[in-house]
């Protein structure tokens, strides 16, 4: 089996071109690809789009460096107006584009991209401002809105364990958006927290992302764990 392990985060993100769309998982700290994001800051790509739950601290670095043209996420304003971030100020000044997507719709749009589903109907957001410009359809007596698949060029993944072929496991809430983003992106790059074992070293019944979805793997050194 192909060995997909690379020696450095730098090598793993070296080819990311300007203009790329990048999926960044994580919900709170667990499952956030902090080392790959840090390497991307150093790498210099700009005019990026990001897909994530929120504009987390790693995405914020890129945003504040004006290297992100658009974010897709479930939070484009602080819940408390006092907690205003540079991203929120830039967004209110039209210096960056953003698309606000309900979290479940975001997850399903990412999943649809990976699953070859062009679009789907969900009851979420019906009757709200977010549904105003969307196509509506009654299905089984319930109103749904049409939502489209949301693909990406790259997914940066944070896993607990990998084998050299790229089969991945996550630990507890670290899983979150990681598997669906790995499925949805053209290129999936993984930082591995705990260990990288030989191909076949993970129970086939306990693999959360099959290796066919994974392109590059880097082991996180002890100083990069960050939790």
């Amino acid at each position, binding site marked *: 089996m192909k060995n997909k392990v690379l020696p450095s985060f730098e090598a793993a993100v070296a080819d990311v071109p300007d203009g790329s769309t990048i999926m960044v998982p994580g919900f709170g700290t667990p499952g956030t690809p902090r080392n790959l994001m840090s390497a991307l800051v150093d790498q210099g790509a700009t005019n990026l789009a990001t897909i994530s739950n929120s504009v987390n601290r790693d995405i914020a670095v890129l945003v504040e460096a004006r290297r992100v043209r658009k974010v897709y996420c*479930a939070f484009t*304003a602080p819940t408390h*107006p006092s907690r205003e971030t540079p991203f929120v100020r830039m967004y209110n000044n039209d210096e960056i584009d953003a698309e606000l997507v309900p979290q*479940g719709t975001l997850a*399903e749009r990412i999943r649809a991209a990976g699953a070859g589903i062009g679009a789907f109907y969900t009851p979420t*957001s019906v009757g709200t401002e977010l549904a105003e410009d969307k196509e509506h359809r009654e299905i089984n007596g319930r109103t749904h809105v049409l939502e489209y698949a949301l693909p990406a060029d790259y997914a940066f993944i944070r896993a607990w364990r990998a084998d050299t072929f790229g089969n991945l496991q996550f630990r*507890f*809430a670290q899983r979150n958006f990681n598997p669906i983003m790995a499925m949805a992106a053209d290129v999936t790059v993984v930082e591995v927290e705990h260990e990288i074992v030989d191909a076949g070293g993970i129970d086939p019944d306990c693999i959360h992302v099959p290796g066919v979805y994974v392109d590059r793997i880097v082991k996180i050194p002890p100083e990069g764990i960050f939790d």
Partner: protein
Amino acid sequence: MADKPRLSRQAMCDRIAMEFQDGWVVNLGVGIPTLCSNYVDPSRDIIYHSENGVIGYGPLAPEGEEIPHLVNAGAQKVTAAPGMAIVHHADSFSLIRGGMIDATVMGAYEVSENGDFANWRFPERKGGGIGGAMDLAACAKRVFIALVHNTRDGKPKLLHRCQLPITAPGVVTMVVTDLGLFDVTPEGFQVRELAPGWTPEEVQEHTEAELAVPDTIPEFRLRA
């Protein structure tokens, strides 16, 4: 006007949690609602679900016993309850949209007597913070709202109609505030219980929507 004492946030959440039935799957929103899990009734098993795919978490982790990878929707370190299961984000919202959440408890800026509520955006500003609230509001079997009865400058939050952009229309069935417990019925807000010492007239003074008041009002149930 010097108000009488109001209910604590913990008392509000205790009261909501008393409504949870044995075996329910419950999703607690960030903020006040997370306090619901501090109310423990050993006669009932409640399965707490968090948007990030944790099904069956336990109380907050004691200091020193945190597992860095186990957090709830508020990014608080929690413990594992026996029988906990983990799924990914799409499967977690499949569970929500699929109608498996017996009750969700959320905070709100406003609730209206027709069951609308608003908790994600102020229209004078761009954008909003929706998180998983719209999915939960549209798809949970029961939507309970926990919020303080008035804003800091005394404005009411239980309204005839929401002024802010709503999170979902007509879904709220019960509201707890620091002044009482209210059912949302076809006739609007129905007083169920009031904070100790408060009369219906006093609470109505702090409320925009007209409250339906039964002949007898039981005392607000506090933790034993």
